[in-house]
């Protein structure tokens, strides 16, 4: 066991989130342990992206609290909190007017790292995510979808955060590129030992990447299970997911925990 495992890296304590009178998330209780990849699985509108944004306080809960490393994330400086958490989203959100190099080096730069260290870090990260160094002067629109997503991951890792939040990062990619990036993600995670919260609606991806899967529906947490348990789950919704995705899921689950 990891020594930090006594205190969860992220903890949702009775968290609800409402917009006007509509409940988006109700009474979520969930712990994410250090070093694990927790996948939030669910349809659109199930509250998974909302849960993610509550962690880095892009949203503030209506009630309840979110603890990051044992401390409520409402305490202290929200800017510091966000810089200590990597964030990757589906549309990547790369700055279109910045080169690859400036995109990746953004947080280290605003954190005041010396220029040389930033440049070295950018090259290190580009290599880590499989981007050729010649690409560093390109703008995002001159890259392929897969390359852009790699830049997004590199940017999130730039200041070496302990936590990574990933909101359907591979959702918009073609199947081959997605497969490639998923495989690299598994390797990367083994090397870096990050705590990851990963949002997806794709069960196959969840089984492959998650150490545990939290299934959400209509703002509620339905069940939490590791990939093998999930496949055998007695929960009707989990079973419905498994049926919908059909064959070949066992192998996905086995690869995910390999």
């Amino acid at each position, binding site marked *: 066991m990891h020594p930090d495992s006594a205190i969860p890296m992220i903890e949702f304590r009775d968290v609800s989130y409402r917009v006007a009178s509509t409940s988006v998330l109700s009474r979520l209780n969930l712990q994410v342990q250090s070093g694990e990849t927790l996948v939030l699985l669910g349809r659109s509108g199930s509250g998974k992206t909302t849960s993610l*944004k509550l962690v880095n306080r892009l949203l503030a809960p209506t009630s309840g609290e979110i603890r990051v490393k044992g401390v409520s994330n409402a305490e202290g400086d929200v*800017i510091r*909190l966000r810089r200590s958490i990597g964030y990757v*989203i589906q549309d990547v*959100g790369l700055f279109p007017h910045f080169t690859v190099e400036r995109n990746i080096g953004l*947080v280290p730069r*605003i954190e005041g790292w010396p220029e040389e260290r930033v440049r070295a870090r950018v090259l290190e990260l580009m290599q880590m995510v499989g981007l050729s160094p010649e690409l560093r002067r390109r703008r995002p629109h001159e890259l392929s979808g897969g390359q852009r997503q790699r830049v997004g991951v590199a940017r999130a890792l730039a200041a070496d955060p302990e936590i990574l939040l990933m909101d359907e990062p591979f959702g918009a990619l073609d199947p081959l590129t997605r497969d490639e990036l998923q495989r690299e993600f598994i390797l990367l995670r083994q090397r870096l030992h990050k705590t990851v919260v990963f949002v997806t609606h794709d069960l196959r991806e969840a089984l492959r990447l998650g150490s545990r899967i939290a299934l959400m529906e209509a703002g509620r947490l339905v069940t939490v299970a590791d990939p093998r348990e999930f496949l055998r789950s007695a929960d009707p919704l989990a079973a419905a997911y498994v049926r919908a995705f059909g064959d070949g899921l066992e192998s996905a689950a086995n690869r995910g925990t390999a």
Partner: protein
Amino acid sequence: MNVFRFIWQNHGQVLELTLEHLRLVGFSTLLAMLIGIPLGIAIAHRPGFNKPVLASANIIQTIPSLALFGFLLPVPWLGERVDRLAILALTLYALLPIIRSTYTGIRGVDPAVVEAGRGMGLTESQLLFQVELPLALSVILSGVRVAVVISVGLATIAAAIGAGGLGEFIFRGLAMVDDRVILAGAIPAALLALVADFGVGWLERLLQPR
């Protein structure tokens, strides 16, 4: 051509009035940018304020320019120096295109990009200066371009209250019923508008984020 001979014979005065004209347009555009861009940013960030602000700027725009110059004449500090007054009036007219384009430009920045920046821990001012403004710049400049072209035309009316500029020739020509004199004001003013339009347009393309 009679007109060009007239302009050549009076080139000293044409040049002087052109510079005066430029001064009126330049100062008023600068002032309108100093007021309009921050205002446009503010209403883009606080959507509740966009309607009243844009409506006010719109109403100003509908006041006939000659009337506005006249209205402002009795105002104490302004009335003493008509060039101040002319600059203020021109500033008011330039506000609408600048506020509107700033508002549109900032609102047009992809929300995913802004949210990604916020999620990465950019402060609100870092978001504004490193993300929103650079991405909105070409749209903002298109508003400045419209404002400048409007101002060059409107500034000719400033001569009616004695604030100088190329309008002097136009009004003098009208009084003398002499086309040459009118055109000695109108041609340089038109050229000025074209040059300004081209210049800001060039800047706009230069700064376009690709």
